[in-house]
């Protein structure tokens, strides 16, 4: 008997899976292994299909990557889903006035959130999806996102600021360095480096765009939308459609379909490379709004 399919399990009685796992994990270490952070992102469902497929392909020839996948799965299963946040707080937290202020801020935040959700529900005719456990959980969270291509300008290339001026060659070189993890699919590290770069060069338009995309690919949609919104606004009357496209994706994934639809409307109206994709996504988003799914 080759195997059976039952419910969620696929069994293959003739295959000693434990032995196969052990042998696969003992294989030679390949070259160009992805960082563990990238495998973690893949298991968390934060990479697009082709990236996951490439990582898995590599793992079938590399013992330590095979082990990294097995381990990532075990961590994902063992990790407590709901555990009290472990946030290091300042040592002077005992100060009661500070606690009172924090409590007051919390109350304001809750009231603000309730008002905001109420406003948005009204704006969308009360049809925006809300999932138990989170007022703005988005049905678009699993929408696959392709990384925006980064055209490395090379040592003699030019990188532009938001106002159209060329940036200093050292900043351009720093951008290339910061984008290395992006090229390797390590978006968490790319976001970290780009944030550092933007601290020193806040006008580096391209860096902010790729920071927004990196955050989006790393599953930090809210932060991504904030960065991409700045990029679009800095682009004046007609920012590149690519910038609006990624902003729309971030807004959708962050549970803000109304704002995303506004951006998609503009992309469709302006035409260009993203117009047909934007029209398709807009139709889906409207369909979901109408059916309440």
């Amino acid at each position: 008997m080759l195997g059976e399919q039952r419910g969620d399990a696929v069994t293959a009685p003739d295959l000693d899976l434990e032995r196969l796992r052990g042998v696969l994990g003992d294989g030679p270490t390949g070259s160009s292994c992805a960082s563990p952070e990238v495998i973690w992102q893949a298991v968390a469902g934060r990479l697009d299909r082709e990236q996951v497929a490439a990582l898995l392909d590599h793992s079938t020839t590399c013992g330590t990557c095979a082990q990294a996948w097995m381990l990532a799965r075990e961590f994902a299963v063992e990790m407590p889903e709901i555990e009290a946040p472990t946030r290091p707080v300042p040592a002077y937290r005992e100060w009661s006035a500070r606690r009172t202020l924090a409590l007051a801020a919390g109350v304001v935040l809750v009231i603000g959130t309730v008002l905001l959700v109420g406003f948005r529900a009204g704006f969308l005719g009360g049809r925006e999806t809300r999932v138990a456990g989170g007022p703005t959980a988005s049905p678009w969270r699993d929408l696959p996102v392709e990384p925006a291509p980064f055209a490395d300008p090379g040592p003699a290339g030019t990188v532009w600021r938001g106002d159209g001026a060329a940036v200093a060659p050292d900043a351009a070189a720093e951008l290339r360095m910061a984008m290395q993890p992006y090229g390797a699919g390590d978006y968490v590290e790319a976001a970290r480096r780009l944030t550092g770069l933007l601290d020193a060069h806040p006008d580096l338009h391209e860096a902010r765009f790729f920071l927004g995309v990196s955050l989006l690919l790393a599953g930090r949609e809210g932060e991504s939308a904030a960065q991409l919104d700045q990029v679009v606004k800095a682009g004046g009357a007609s920012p590149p459609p690519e910038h609006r496209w990624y902003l729309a994706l971030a807004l959708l994934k962050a549970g803000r379909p109304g704002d995303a639809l506004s951006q998609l409307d503009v992309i469709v109206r302006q035409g260009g490379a993203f117009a047909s994709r934007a029209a398709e996504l807009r139709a889906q988003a409207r369909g979901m709004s109408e059916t309440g799914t």
Partner: protein
Amino acid sequence: MSVIAEEEGAAAVAGIASADWERLKGVIERAVTRVCPRRLTAHRDDIVQAALLRVLDVLGRGEHAGIRTSSYLWQVAYTVTVDELRRVARRREVSLEEGDVIAMPVRRVPDPERIAEGIEAGEAIRACLQALARPRRLAVALHLYGFAAAEASRTLGWDLKQVHNLTYRGLADLRRCLASKGVTP
């Protein structure tokens, strides 16, 4: 000064109260203890220390916001464990290439015939996996890594039924291929 005292000193510099540091440390220790592979048991303390140093590094850069949840700490524990796995594997491979004798407890020295069998089986499995059609290979790989069909469906972004079919057919192909190479799966 001991490593622990150094860590605690660094934690104080990073502005973390002792109780919070203990809680943070506890989460990492629990994560490593629960999931550390058997082959790294002897390295468990090193992994915990390395994970704590990484967290301190993040705190030292003032990125407190990154350390908000236990899931972040679990991710750090995972990352450090994989780094250690790779380091141990590299060291073993270099030692074997250079012909060094690896010190192992006497009772755990495996039979050379079994080692040869294992290497042969590993090569056969990898060759057979490569021979599978790509979608089947990906589904089977996740199955071998312990992913349930629903988990694989989420990771690959494929329909659950599709994952079931691909895994089932892929495992059948794998079995046939291994049998043709004389490897008893």
